[in-house]
């Protein structure tokens, strides 16, 4: 047996073994150390890093993301506590369209009411909601209504396509033509950085021979974002076929699917789809490895995700090297967001030019998530570059008077309603000092206390910072503390925010710390009156 591979596999198993052992509790680290050969202090370090492992007593978690807070998460938390249920707070559960959401063990329970919580007590396992009464698989709302299905990349309402036609077409075309189609499509990464996909694929192809991997990033944890969940639940066929085309093109034999630990339902859907694929043999000898995270937003950052897959604390790595040079276990790795990968089959079947032409100010359609103060929160597949107004139209309008919106997750900060006609694309939002990010749009009407909303976002980053570098570890703590002091009447509390934010942007290792001040700095810029007292 390959000794290195054995050591590697045992180290990689640490989070899973910890989960089976019941998470962080006295004596567990030592037992897991014996079993895996990893030193016990390091096992403890891993167990204490991941939220789902570090607090095994919390069987229920209430999502405290912005949209869930707006929908009454605090009342759920109070109700669960006073009912004596084992409850804790969770960061964002990627269920902002079914707010307020709760986590029961590893499953998200959508649209929970205070009555649901009271009915469950004293047995936490009984928590159910109207939206999924018998624990049946639930889905979020999709749109827009009446869309021309020929103009959709994902067709979320469509049936599963297990024909393998796109894969067959990719085989027929050969790697070079696949790369050309990808380039022609103009597909940019949908995980937030908008990096052109074809450059990464070509970069993989030009690596020296040897093992290489394809990784699916399904950590989806950016507040306001839930499109990957919806894609996984509705169209796992597209995700698996896209991964297979990618692996075939770049010469990988192993594909890793990293799902956030709270994706119990998407995982079961994927497992069923993988079973079917295995029975039909349509993906050949390609090996798929499913891995569930253990609760850490930062593991969506691609290099932290590699650390997590390797069984370590999810600390982002420095770059260079880039993942295509040195990624998972130091091997060339192609990592993509779920939506990016799921775009591939359509690009291969219908052509790069077709995909490119779908967009308005940039290539393709985009899965926009909209939640918060909106009539019909959900996932909307629309041309890249529509405005918030158009998105709101599709989603039934704002519940009040639009005051502000966050265009692409917590890290994109807040923009005023006057930006409602600005294209929601990568370039135009960048010019406004914001970003499209993961396209998790949260709209706020005039009844929302903006300072509270900012605090929710700051609190999120503070809770999710990996703690590796001082600018982010101390900066996120400092900003939330400063806002609290300001709210409590300290007039000078925000005096150094600009310097701290500057330092976080310049000094932080990864994107989390680099953008974590955005909710506060953008709000101070656009809504100074909210912070005058």
């Amino acid at each position, binding site marked *: 047996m390959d000794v290195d591979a054995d050591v590697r596999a045992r180290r990689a198993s640490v989070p899973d073994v910890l989960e089976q052992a019941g998470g962080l509790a006295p004596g567990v680290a030592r037992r897991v150390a014996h079993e895996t050969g990893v030193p016990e202090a390091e096992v403890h370090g891993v167990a204490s890093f991941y939220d789902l492992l570090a607090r095994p007593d919390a069987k229920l978690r209430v999502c405290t993301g912005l949209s869930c807070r707006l929908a009454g998460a605090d009342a759920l938390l109070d109700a669960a506590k006073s009912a004596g249920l084992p409850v804790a707070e969770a960061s964002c559960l990627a269920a902002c369209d079914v707010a307020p959401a709760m986590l029961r063990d590893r499953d998200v329970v959508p649209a929970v009411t205070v009555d649901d919580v009271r009915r469950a007590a004293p047995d936490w396992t009984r928590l159910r909601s109207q939206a999924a009464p018998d624990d049946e698989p639930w889905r979020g709302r999709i749109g827009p209504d009446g869309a021309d299905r020929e103009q959709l990349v994902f067709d979320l309402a469509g049936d599963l396509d297990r024909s393998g036609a796109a894969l067959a077409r990719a085989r027929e075309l050969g790697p070079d033509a696949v790369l050309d189609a990808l380039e022609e499509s103009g597909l940019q990464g949908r995980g937030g950085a908008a990096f052109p996909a074809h450059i990464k694929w070509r970069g993989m192809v030009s690596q020296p021979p040897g093992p290489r991997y394809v990784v699916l990033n399904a950590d989806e944890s950016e507040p306001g974002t839930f499109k990957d969940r919806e894609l996984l639940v509705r169209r796992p066929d597209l995700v698996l076929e896209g991964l297979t085309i990618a692996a075939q093109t770049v010469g990988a034999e192993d594909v890793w699917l990293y799902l956030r630990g709270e994706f119990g339902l998407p995982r079961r859907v994927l497992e069923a789809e993988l079973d079917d694929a295995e029975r039909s043999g349509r993906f050949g000898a390609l090996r798929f490895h499913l891995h569930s995270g253990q609760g850490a937003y930062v593991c969506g950052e691609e290099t932290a995700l590699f650390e997590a897959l390797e069984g370590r604390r999810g600390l982002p790595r420095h770059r260079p090297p880039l993942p295509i040079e040195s990624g998972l276990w130091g091997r060339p790795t192609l990592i993509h967001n779920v939506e990016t990968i799921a775009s591939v089959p359509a690009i291969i079947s219908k052509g790069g030019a077709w995909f490119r032409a779908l967009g308005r100010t940039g290539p393709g359609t985009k899965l926009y998530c909209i939640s918060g103060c909106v009539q019909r929160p959900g996932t909307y597949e629309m041309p890249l570059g529509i405005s918030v107004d158009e998105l709101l139209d599709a989603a039934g309008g704002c519940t009040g008077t639009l005051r502000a919106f966050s265009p692409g997750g917590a890290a994109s900060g807040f923009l005023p309603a006057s930006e409602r006609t600005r294209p929601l694309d990568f370039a135009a939002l960048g010019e406004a000092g914001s970003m499209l990010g993961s396209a998790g749009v949260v709209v706020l009407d005039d009844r929302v206390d903006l300072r509270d909303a900012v605090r929710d976002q700051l609190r999120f980053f503070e809770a999710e*910072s990996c703690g590796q570098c001082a600018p982010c570890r101390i900066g996120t703590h400092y900003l939330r503390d400063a806002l609290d002091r300001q709210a409590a009447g300290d007039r000078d509390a925000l005096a150094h925010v600009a310097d701290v934010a500057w330092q976080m942007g310049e000094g932080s290792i990864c994107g989390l710390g680099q953008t974590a001040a955005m909710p506060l700095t953008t709000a101070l810029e656009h809504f100074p009156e909210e912070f005058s007292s």
Partner: protein
Amino acid sequence: MSQATTLELDGRTVEFSPGETLLDVARRSGVEIPTLCDDPRLEPVGACRTCLVEVEGQRRLAPSCMTPATAGMNVSTGSERVDRHRRTLFGLYLTDHPVPDGVGEAGDELLEMAARYGAPSDWGRLESRRGDRTSDRNPYVLFDAERCILCARCTRYCDEVEGVNAISLSSRGAETTISTADALSLLDTSCELCGGCIDVCPTGAMTEKLPRTRGQEEVPVEAVRTTCNFCGVGCQLDLLVDRQANDGRGRVVRTVSPEPGTTTNDGNLCVKGRFAYDFIDHPDRLTHPLVRGADGELREASWDEALAAAAEGLRGVAERHGPDALGFVSSSRCTMEENFLVQKLARAVFSTNNVHQCAAT
């Protein structure tokens, strides 16, 4: 000077060798770059962010400890951007660190640097959320979580140099701290109490218990370089001596290891070398030879008397029972030369091969 191996550093053209980092080049060229998480014995991690410099054409500031020197690079360590970076970074560190009356307290590298680079110290104070291990009953190492800046020198040292892995980074975010498994006492872990964590800590978060419990933290000391005499390896160490103590006879307050890279032990020591210095000034320590008289009582003697008594005893045994009735055991605390002489004594003087040394098993 060939173009292929030079770069611009603050406007100067400097040569570098392949494999050097920007930090290496700067240090060699006498350009100061502050570092907190760097240690020549450890893999660089770029976590403390103090060594960031500006490289022309790169969007982000680069950690000089992890950036390989490349031909033609244009590096500045003193630009306005780097200056502001240092000021604001140290300013932020200070909000999360105990700051005594004046910034710049000796012995805390963070405070020294903050003072040197003009960091603001009026940004307010955060309450530390780092877990500590105050109930740890080990006799030597004290962890003051409040002073910890999470440079992770101690955990990496424990892993990469000692191969012991008794401590690790644990928890995350503002709660990140240095912990053993389940926050156990070091005595209940794989810890060998080498004290390396104390030595590598730049801020005094890892300190030694003994001087504290004796109230000797603040006394002025003088460093005296010596060779550890616990074994034959010959580690160099510095005894920090309080000359005034013991009515002017002096007292060793603690032991520190010399800078890594300067002596054979490369800054490393074991539990004995680092912590077992108490015997030096201990009242029970023998400072004169003792010879047992006919009455069975021990009495102080001169070296000549003592050696004569030993010689007489050894010779007497050899005469009465033959040379093989004698056995010589020497100590690994002796030098190689001394051990050589002991076997000479056994073989050449007493004609026996009964000679052993405790490390020779």
